[in-house]
């Protein structure tokens, strides 16, 4: 059956106000069923207050191998970090 039913990615919001975070995936026939399965699978111990399910095929992902050209971590730009700037003594909290 799992061969026939599409794969869904599951995202949980742990508490109101937080971002939804990816927790895993599961197979289901449709979104409604995926929500029920996600409930049964991922929130048996009050891990979340809201579930998102998204069909895996609808997720477009970047490739880690593209790091250099697409995902440059900008390690050569230390000035983007606050810690790059030395503050005079006595200035805290900036």
């Amino acid at each position, binding site marked *: 059956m799992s061969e026939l039913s599409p794969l869904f990615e599951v995202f949980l919001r742990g508490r*109101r*106000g*937080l971002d939804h975070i990816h927790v895993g995936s599961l197979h289901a026939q449709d979104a409604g069923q995926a929500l029920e399965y996600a409930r049964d699978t991922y929130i048996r111990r009050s891990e979340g207050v809201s579930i998102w399910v998204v069909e895996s095929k609808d997720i477009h992902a970047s490739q880690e191998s593209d790091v250099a050209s697409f995902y440059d971590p900008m390690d050569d*730009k230390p*000035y*983007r970090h606050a810690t*790059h700037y030395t503050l*005079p003594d006595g*200035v805290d909290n*900036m």
Partner: protein
Amino acid sequence: MAEANDLEQVFENKIDAEEKIEPKDWMPEGYRKNLIRQMSQHAHSEVIGMQPEGNWLTRAPTLERKSVLLAKIQDEAGHGLYLYSATETLGITREEIVQALHDGRAKYASIFNYPSLTWADIGAIGWLVDGAAIVNQVALQRTSYGPYARAMVRICKEESFHQRQGYESIAVLARGSAQQKAMAQDALNRWWWPSLMMFGPHDADSAHSAQSMLWKIKRKSNDELRQSFVDQTVSQAEIIDLEIPDPDLKWNEQRQHFDFGEIDWDEFKQVINGNGLCNRERLAQHKKAHANGAWVRDAVAAYVKGKTGESGE
């Protein structure tokens, strides 16, 4: 009827319990409108704020300073995007939001209607304008609307770099030649009062404040935030030997806060109402940039249309 009351009650309960309101939750129309107003103005401020800084991009004194300024301005564009997207979760389109700016129905922080006249202004903007924005934004991390609160958390992480680079830049001038020091002092003189105005009118005169505080959209009042900004900035000025241009500024032992002089509210009103030095220029520049980008939006739309046409076969 009973149902509407129930919904309102559920909403109020969430607010009372310090829970966030999320896009799919029921919310009063006034809450939604109030958020759209505040969040879109906040987004516009991030975007318009790039103009006074962009003015010095090609004239930054060193490549290092230029790289820093470019990175900072890029962050501000990103902040605008976070906030526009968060505003769109309230069921308004980007086009409507931008149109309101162009029609003059939506405002942005009035400080960006002042000109950046010298290189020292760039340091002063990072130190004071971003500094004031941080005080405001730190409080807004606890705002009641989830997407707004989360955007603020992301923005605050980036703002610290903005303020530090500005402070460091003006500190270098302040300990430079007499001429450089005078330039730094002049920048502080011109940006100090507009920075205090960034927090808006006194609480008693603020049109939307009371309701916003009840709904926990705003978590601290204009006057409270302004006081925190003054309190933290005084020693920063002293340390780099610059003088804050306010003869009434002095420590109040009893209040454990600095007392400070009255803002020129007439000037504030003039600038808010479109009569600042750069209001027309800022808006005209935004309209021009938007119009110049029309072909990109058209090209994207044509590309998408072509693609979906193909796959639709």
